């Protein structure tokens, strides 16, 4: 049976796209929020424990460095299956959007840590000197001086990470996680339904554009 283009498009209903888009946003957003907390913390640790940092600690720095590199080296598709036992332990199941959040967090924490590290190293290092000169404790240095100054950069980091997460979450289909990516793959690619695949890609492009645009606007708004 050969279907026309319009028939092919009708294979997937508008409602299904909406549900899938919401799943994509749900997976990415929850993972993002968790990754922000840990990613920023680890990024800050990378900077303050390095050899010119305010609490220089070679061993700790190397442990974090190597761990971050190892996790970042694992392709997301492998991470998805590798973490199945852990996912079952935490979520109770390995199927569904919530289950995919675990590997997404593992994927994004080290990613965010590196982005934040780069942002902090880009800052004028005079900030650390200033804080120390005026008797700020390490905690005050980070929370009162460094992070507020880095905020516009971190907003852009979040934008980049969010887009990375949307991309990675498209692979959720492999473990039954749903989302736009799953439709593109299962209903589009596997069933030779090119129009559906294209629609999925367009939806992803729109989401990415919206995220990037919002990130830039916020950055411009808060940057002085």
């Amino acid at each position, binding site marked *: 049976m050969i279907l026309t283009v319009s028939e092919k498009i009708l294979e997937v209903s508008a409602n299904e796209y909406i549900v899938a888009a919401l799943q994509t946003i749900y997976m990415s957003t929850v993972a993002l929020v968790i990754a922000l907390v840990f990613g920023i913390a680890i990024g800050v640790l990378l900077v303050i424990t390095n050899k010119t940092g305010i609490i220089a600690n070679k061993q700790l720095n190397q442990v974090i460095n190597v761990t971050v590199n190892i996790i970042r080296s694992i392709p997301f598709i492998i991470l998805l299956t590798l973490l199945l036992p852990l996912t079952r332990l935490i979520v109770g199941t390995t199927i569904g959007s919530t289950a995919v959040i675990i590997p997404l967090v593992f994927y994004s924490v080290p990613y965010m840590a590196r982005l934040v590290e780069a942002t902090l190293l880009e800052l004028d290092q005079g900030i650390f*000197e*200033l804080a120390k000169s005026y*008797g700020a404790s390490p905690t005050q240095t980070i929370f009162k*001086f460094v992070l507020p*100054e880095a905020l*516009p950069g971190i907003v852009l980091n979040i934008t980049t990470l969010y887009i990375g997460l949307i991309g990675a979450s498209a692979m959720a289909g492999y473990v039954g996680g749903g989302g736009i990516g799953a439709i593109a793959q299962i209903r589009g690619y596997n069933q030779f339904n090119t129009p559906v695949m294209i629609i999925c890609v367009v939806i992803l492009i729109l989401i990415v554009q919206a995220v990037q645009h919002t990130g830039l606007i916020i950055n411009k708004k*808060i*940057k*002085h």
Partner: protein
Amino acid sequence: MIEFKDVNKYYKQKDGELHALKDINLRIDPGEIFGCIGFSGAGKSTLLRCVNGLEPITSGSVIVDQVDFHTLSAVEQREVQKDIGIIFQQFNLLNQKTIYDNIKIVLDISNYPKSEVDARIREVLDFVGLSDKLNEYPNQLSGGQKQRVGIARAIANKPKILLCDEPTSALDPITTDSILELIKKVNSELGITILIITHEMEVISKICNRVAIMESGAIIESGPIFDIFVNPQRPITKKLVNNVINNELPQVVIDQVSFDKATNIRQLIYNTDELSKPLISYLSRNFDVEVSILFGSVIEFQGKLLGSLIVEFICTPEVLKSIYLELEQHNLIVREVEL
């Protein structure tokens, strides 16, 4: 107020150690403006950074307001640091905070009485003449204004000491003068002791009471600036002094002076007191001598004038001797000139 006792500092480097500070002994009295000058790499910045613990020292001690700073724990050091203001060459303002918040942050850390914070911020901004910039951000300000904010921030917590690390090196000459005036005002009106690091002798001449000259980690000469300017000893000091007051004959002049006349060429150094006396005409009227002025300069520092004249006396050796005696009675310094 600040005292260095046998301070040494080594930096570890790939190929051994760098002796950054060598046996530094230095005393900065309460209420004075002390300058420290040297070329880059002389160790002057390191010296300043040892006062507030930005750099640890290897041996010796730095006494800051009667406390041996480097024997304190990190937490105790922070308490002392809160009483030491510092301004930087690159200002180090927080770009994401308003001018108001840039000053507030220092007061917050210092546990300044909360109810007085607002009034204090307005007071110090008024002192530096930036009351109208309260809600602006650093990037909206000029370099000179940024340094004014730096000074306002530095004095906000009412410190006893203000450290100035090349405060005018990023500024143009006119702005430099206004910032130096402001630093002077901090000293005279608030009684804050000031240590200023610079590579410009002009900065020293304009505001310092005493100066130390540093070269490769050691203090090679120090004293009241008038003495240093009148009588520099070391080659580097002479070079630095010559940047402000020219004591050396230019080649053009040397070329025109014949060798046998050299014995009659002298440098006369005089200060404000002698300025009102018509000395040259007095000499030619009372001695059998003609005076030819070869070269000269006068500089002003801190309300005093210091002049240097290089003159040729055309007369007999006997007359010359009596002229020297006469000049010395008038407190002029007469010095031979190297050609």
